[in-house]
Structure formats: C-alpha cells, structure tokens
C-alpha cells in the first residue's frame, strides 16, 4: 500500500452488524468519482450478501446510457455478484441479498412493487458459458418474444433481425430448424446475444462472455459489442485486460480485501474512470499494479 494505512470502519444495516476495517483510500475516492453523464443504472452504497458473507461492499457506480462499461479485477472480487444484482438475477440464488439502492432510469429495481421479471426484460444477460436452450436455432430466438408476449406481427422477421444484429444470420439462415447445440461455441454465444436482443432490452449485461471462446470468436463478439453500443447499454465483466481496453468507454476496477476482524474477503470498487484514464494513468496504485500485471 503506497499511502498511509489509516483504517476506516464500515458498518452495515444488517442484523449481523459485521464491522469491517478497510484502508481509507476507498472512502476518499468514492466521493471523488467522476460523474457519468446520462446514467441509465446507478448503484448507491450497494452491499451484496450470500447469507452472512458480504461479497460486495459499498459500491457507488453509475453506468452511462449507450456506453460500454467494463468491470475488471481479480477473481472472487465480486464482479459477477455485482453484475447479477443489476438485473435481480441474484433473486434466483438462495441466501443472496442486496442492500443499498440500484436504480434503472431513476426507478429503484428492488422496490417491493417492482417486478423482477420486468426488470430482466429491460436488462438482459449473457452468461460466461454459452447456454442456448435445447431447441432449434429459430426457437431459441423466438423464445423470449413468446414468453413476454411481445406483439411481433411476424416472428420470422423478428428472428431474422435479431440474428442479423448478432452477426449470425449468414451462418445459420439455412439451418434455422436445426438444434442450437450443433453450433460452435462462438456461434452459440452470438446466438445467446441474439436471443437477448430479440426481447429488445435497454441494457445487456455480459459476464465474461468470451472466456470460453477462441481469439477469433472473441474478436467477433467484440466487434459485435461495438456495433450494439449504438442502441444498447452494455456492461461487461472481463478477465481480459486488452478486451476492456479495446471495447469499453469506462472501466471500473474492483479488488477483494480481507476484513481485519473476520478475515473474510469482500469486493470493493477501487477506481472508476474513462478506460483510457484507467489504463494510461490510473490514480490508484492497486489499479496500476493490476493493469501492469504486477498484482499480487
């Protein structure tokens, strides 16, 4: 740690009241975060728990509309956890609990009258491992519009449009009735992106979407993200630093710190800025260490 190691103590509103001490830089920097113009999702003091374990602590973060934001940081620092809390996918995990506020277009997505189903319709998600349904390519795309009752005058057109936007149409147009499982990993992932686009969300969350793909498939997905940025807000978790540098407008760097009391590691936002700034002149030593591969 380069600077003084004065400890700040954080307490939570939970009944457990664990007190965790962190070095102070985090608190000071949080206040100094650059504001994101035109934010579509805003997190304020977000804590995410798995039962009593606090996986993410005190995250203040805004995501710009029609921007690509990358979340980077070492394994286990809570990137996936935070990402899932943005569209209430954590609801599906037993014992997961989100504190603080997450707003989408100004509306608290955890408000008790808000329907998680509706939230996920507006904020879609692409997963680490391609997870097409065991159905035909066509039915994979048509699934979303059908379940949400999207009034598509012509489903064929909708399927073609989604596949075209996902840069997959030329490869699959002659085998729409075949199983999606016959596609390559990269094609399956683009199919999952197409499936997400088909329900016309505003935001697409991507959790390491290229981690199981080869470099060529990866670069196709990156190109695709760049094109989708015209119409969609994209938030991507990535392990690949170059990928963040290539595609993201802004980058948030997270790390995991051990609490002095319990020894449990919890994820913290260290630094958030324009990607160029993060990669060229990070303000925090830890960011610099991580970016330059000197992370311990």
């Amino acid at each position, binding site marked *: 740690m380069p600077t003084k190691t004065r400890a700040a103590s954080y307490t939570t509103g939970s009944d457990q009241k664990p007190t965790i001490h962190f070095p102070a830089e985090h608190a000071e920097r949080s206040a100094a975060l650059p504001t994101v113009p035109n934010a579509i999702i805003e997190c304020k003091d977000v804590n995410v728990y798995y039962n009593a374990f606090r996986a993410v602590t005190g995250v203040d973060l805004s995501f710009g509309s029609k921007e690509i934001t990358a979340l980077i940081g070492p394994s286990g620092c809570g990137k996936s956890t935070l990402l899932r809390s943005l569209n209430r996918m954590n609801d599906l995990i037993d014992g997961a609990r989100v504190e603080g506020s997450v707003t989408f277009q100004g509306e608290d997505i955890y408000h008790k009258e808000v329907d998680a189903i509706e939230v996920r319709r507006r904020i879609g998600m692409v997963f680490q491992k391609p997870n097409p*349904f065991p159905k035909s390519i066509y039915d994979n795309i048509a699934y979303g519009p059908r379940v949400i009752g999207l009034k598509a005058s012509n489903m064929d057109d909708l399927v073609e449009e989604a596949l075209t936007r996902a840069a997959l149409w030329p490869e699959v147009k002659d085998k729409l009735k075949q199983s999606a499982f016959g596609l390559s990993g990269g094609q399956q992932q683009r199919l999952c992106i197409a499936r997400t686009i088909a329900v016309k969300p505003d935001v697409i969350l991507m959790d390491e979407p290229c981690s199981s793909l080869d470099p060529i498939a990866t670069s196709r997905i990156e190109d695709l993200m760049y094109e989708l940025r015209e119409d969609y807000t994209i938030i991507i978790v990535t392990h690949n630093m170059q990928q963040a540098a290539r595609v993201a407008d802004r980058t948030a760097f997270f790390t995991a710190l051990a609490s002095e009391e319990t020894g449990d590691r919890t994820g913290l936002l260290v630094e958030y800025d324009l990607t160029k700034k993060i990669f060229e002149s990070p303000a925090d030593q830890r960011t610099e260490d991580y970016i330059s591969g000197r992370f311990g």
Partner: protein
Amino acid sequence: MSTLTPVGGSALLPGRPAVSLRSNRPRHGETFVRFLLRVAAILTIVITGGILIALLVPSIEFFRTVSVFDFLFGDRWAPRFADASFGVLPLVTATAWTSGIALLVAIPLGLGAAVFLSEYAKPGLRKVLKPVLEILAGIPTVVFGLFALQFVQATVFRGLFDLDTGAFSVLAAGLVMGVMIVPTIASISEDAMSAVPLSMRQGSAALGANRMQTTVRVVFPAALSGIIAAIVLGVSRAVGETMIVAIAAGGQARIVTGPLEQGQTMTGFIANAALGDSRVGSLEYDTLFAVGLLLFLVTLLFNFISIRFVRRFREIY
C-alpha cells in the same frame, strides 16, 4: 533446459533404450471385475428369456384349444364353467378402468409434485419432502388395498356419499392405486428435472420468463425423456398392480361400463385362479399364462410407444 527425464527413457530420443508400450503387469483384479459384470449382464438376459419362455409354452398350449380371435375379442370370461368361454374383454375393460383412473390421479399429482420439488421448493423443504415421498412408495400394496376397500369404498362412497355401488368398485381401487403411483412418477420425474442444468433456467429468467414459463417451456422439454420414463413406469405399475384390485375392485369378470361397477382385472384373475387348484397342464392352468402373456405384451407396447415418442420430441441438453 528441461530437468524432466521420461521414466524408462523414450525410443524417440537418441541414446535411450526403446521401451514397449505394452503392459507388463497382469491386471487380475480388473479382469475379474469385468468377468463378474459380464456374468451379471448375461444372467439378466437369460432370466428374462426364461420368464418369456415360461409364459409362452403354456400359452401356446392354450391357443391350441382357444382361437386368438375368440380370446381377444370375446366378451364372456367364464373359464371354469361347464360351457367355458375365454373372451378376455371383461378382464381388459376392468384393467383399463382401474389403470385409467389411477393414471388420471397419478400423472397430474406426480408431475405437480415433481415440479414443486424441483422448481419451487426451497432446498431445505425438498430435503424433507423427497424422503417422505419415497416412504410413501414403500407402503405395502395390501395396505392400500384394505384402505380402498374399507375406507374409500365402504366409508366414503357408500357411507358418506351414499353412492349406488356394491362392496367393490373399480373407482375405489383406481383412486387408491393412483395415490400409490404418485411417488413413483414424482420421484423419477423430479430427478429428471433436477438434472436440467441451472444455466438453462438462468438463461430463461434473463429473458424475462417467469418460473412457470421456464418450467413448462424449458425444463419440461429438456427433461422429457425422464418424465416419459416415469409415466411409463407408472402405467406399468397400474396395469400390473395386483393386490389393490384383487381386494377392492371385485371378483366377477363382467364388462365394466361405469366407474362404480365392480370388475375383475387381468391381474385380479391371475391372483385368484393361481390360488385355486388348477392342475398343471390343464386348460385352466394354461389360461393363467395366456392372460399373463397379454399383460406382458401390453406393458411392452407402452414401452415401445414411449421410446418412439421420446425419440421424436426430446430436447437434449
């Protein structure tokens, strides 16, 4: 550079002795286990074949006396009368009624329970409920039979509802048999549904599908072959169930035209007649095996249909 030395050297590296890839240690344990497994597999086939032959030989004898047509389509079953008649339809109708009623109960309840356990119940609750379900599957069927006869038929149907029915009915037997089959269908289809990867459900949820839609449109089709297997097993158990129908469905072989009538099923007949004093080799004795063979073929038919069905509609994950 490398400090790793291949054990025993390698033929590809100069200056090293060539080494054979053939195993030089005999693996007796493995050979023995393989032998045991093969014996087990062969034994299964031999025993099944033996049962089939034991059914076939007396049946062929039976069909020398009675034509297949008269057997299958005759509507009077009176094998022990002076003017004997071997039309199996009365037995078949009784079996159809009891099995049909049982499956009407067992399939919806069983699948409902499976969906609840696999998709809705919290893990803690599931851990408690699943063993309870399996205990239910272990209750001896004679207990179910008594329950059908004394409680459902006598107390509820005749006492409480004052229904126009005798001491026995295919409805009472069928309903209770349905309850008996619920755990079988629930347990096996729950296994099939739980085996569908979580990522499928997440993918569906992320598109804005609710839990019911995810269950019906993603989990169900993906688990279809297991679910069909569960239903077929349920059908086989219903068609082959003996004790409940022998006790509660009735003992007179007459064409059954309504649920409140009594009726003797195929299994009911076999159970009854086998306890009698039919001489080995007599026509009465052979009759038992002809009915048994029919039962076997019906079950086999359901299995074939289900395999075709699964091939056609299953979704592989």
